[in-house]
């Protein structure tokens, strides 16, 4: 991978993040009503107090560049302002509390669905028209058409309300997290099972469809014919020749997908009251807690940009054509 390629990708990522920060800044100022009117609701305040407050908050200075510069400065310092809803708490600490559960859910979900989805897709594409292909592709397409909450709600009806195997919501039972070692993990796993199944099912459809078409595309390549002509066994052609090449587009797709995964995870979390970023988003939406909403957007957007950057770098390392 050349320094030039790396440099280009880095620059692109930095410009995108800058644009995200700018968007975040402008969006908040788009709203009617000035901040001091919202925050100083007392109508009896004298003009002097209002002026003083405006000066203290820097609102007397022009929007661009002064306010923008100080906004960027504090964003870089990790100061995202204070939550409206959770009074007095800085946005960063409100969000930080919720990152863990979401990472657990999304991370495990990605892991399961990448393995299962790619396995199903690769096999279906290799044996095109076979039983696995017909059933797998049909099911994948249906799953692909289902929003996460449409997968999750029936799971609750069947496995929580109906059979009673799993709890309907939350991450721990009352006092469940304080029990001695094996019990607290078991309690967590029982709560995690259904949300995790929801996220995984939603993703498996997507990944198997993508992997299937990637395998079908590589199947018609010359090097596959060559490998067959050499007399290699079918399984070995798939594993050693078709599979690694079909994985190339998958790396990018999985990274690009991250934004959608988090978006989808939001609804899965709502269905199961999973205490992650998704439920926080809804709480913030309901109370119009804009600083928290913006913080979540910034966090998700920047992670997606970084994931894309990582995918570009991995792609550069894997694909000799980009290495130049």
């Amino acid at each position, binding site marked *: 991978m050349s320094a030039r390629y790396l440099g280009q990708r880095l620059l692109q990522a930095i410009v*995108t993040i800058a644009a995200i920060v700018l968007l975040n800044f402008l969006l*908040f100022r788009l*709203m009617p009503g000035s901040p001091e009117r919202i925050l100083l609701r007392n109508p009896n305040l004298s003009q002097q107090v209002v002026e003083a407050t405006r000066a203290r908050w820097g609102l007397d200075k022009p929007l661009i560049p002064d306010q923008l510069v100080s906004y960027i400065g504090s964003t870089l310092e990790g100061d995202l302002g204070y939550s409206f809803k959770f009074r007095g708490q800085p946005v960063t600490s409100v969000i930080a509390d919720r990152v863990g559960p979401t990472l657990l859910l999304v991370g495990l979900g990605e892991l399961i669905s990448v393995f299962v989805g790619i396995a199903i897709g690769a096999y279906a594409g290799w044996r095109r028209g076979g039983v696995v292909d017909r059933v797998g592709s049909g099911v994948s397409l249906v799953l692909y*058409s289902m929003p996460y*909450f*449409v997968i999750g*709600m029936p799971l609750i009806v069947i496995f929580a309300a109906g059979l009673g195997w799993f709890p309907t919501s939350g991450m721990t039972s009352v006092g469940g997290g304080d029990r001695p070692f094996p019990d607290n993990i078991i309690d967590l796993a029982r709560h995690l099972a259904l949300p995790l199944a929801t996220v995984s099912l939603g993703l498996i459809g997507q990944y198997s469809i993508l992997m299937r078409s990637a395998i079908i595309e590589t199947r018609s390549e010359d090097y596959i014919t060559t490998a067959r002509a050499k007399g290699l066994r079918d399984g070995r052609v798939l594993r050693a020749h078709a599979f690694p090449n079909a994985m190339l587009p998958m790396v990018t797709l999985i990274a690009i997908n991250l934004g959608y995964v988090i978006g989808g995870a939001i609804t899965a979390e709502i269905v199961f009251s999973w205490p992650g970023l998704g439920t926080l*988003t809804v709480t913030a939406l309901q109370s119009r807690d804009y600083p928290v909403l913006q913080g979540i*957007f910034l966090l998700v957007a920047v992670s*997606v940009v970084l994931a894309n950057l990582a995918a570009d770098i991995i792609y550069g390392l894997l694909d000799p054509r980009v290495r130049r």
Partner: protein
Amino acid sequence: MSAARASGAPVSGAPVSGAGKAGRWRLRAAQLRAFAARYAGRADGMLGLVVLVFFGILALAPELFVGPLETATRASAHAFDAPSAQHLLGADDLGRDILNRTVHGARISMTIGLMATVITLVFGVVLGLVAGYSGGLVDNLLMRIADFFLVLPTFVLALILAPVLIEVVGADAEVMGIRATLLVIIVVIGITSWAATARIIRSQTLSLKERMFVDRARVVGVGPGRIILRHILPNVMNLIVANAVLTFASAVLTETTLSFIGLGDPFQPSWGQILNGAQDSGAAGLGAWWVIAPPAVSVVLVILAFTLMGNALDDLLNPKSRVRR
């Protein structure tokens, strides 16, 4: 494959020699018939079409089938009534008939999906044509913006954009009988999803503008606006149609999700809004599957139908997509 090539050939600009206006129309009608015959050969596409027609009829005249929309004051059943002869699909937490609301939801969900698709396509097609045809700095700038929207987690952006826009417009505004909340959802879907369309149209425009018939038009002195409208646009129409169908599927998906999260309008319930009500009343935990299944199945069927149709159209109309499925 030769038939597919024929439909990808230029529609305008390469005039059929000796044919007048009537001749051209006859040619187009024949092309359309040939295309309909090929489409009819696609089982998946036809299945999608049947589902679409079914929900389309429901959406056109919901009152005809189930009477006026049941609201909290006009509820005809008791809370969480199970399905019975009188209420085929049972009732929700406020005693509203689920069948009634699901059929009415078809109209609202599909109207929003349609309008969002139109906005997405207008933005995407215009910007794609302009970027592809003008090239240079304009192209570069527009495509950087498109890339930005492609990388951005658009759904999360929609989440913060929607409440801000609702605050700007005011929740009680109304255009053509559609309330502000829904309008905002339509616009937000448009803003966040035009980029993919623009990219597709741009790449096709890039190759079209190098073709002989465009050169000829330019030499004769036809202006850029007219070349884009009369010579390039008709030739990307195929792509637009295939893309529109797939865009509709994702628009319905986004609308359902946004409404489910609570950005919908309770007075004009879409399927997502009905599911939001089910979530808020804890229907799933109570085992009241009948509140969830009808709107959920409807959403999945409609998205599935459009995905099937879109894939079939894409295979038939898009010269670049070789057989993938």
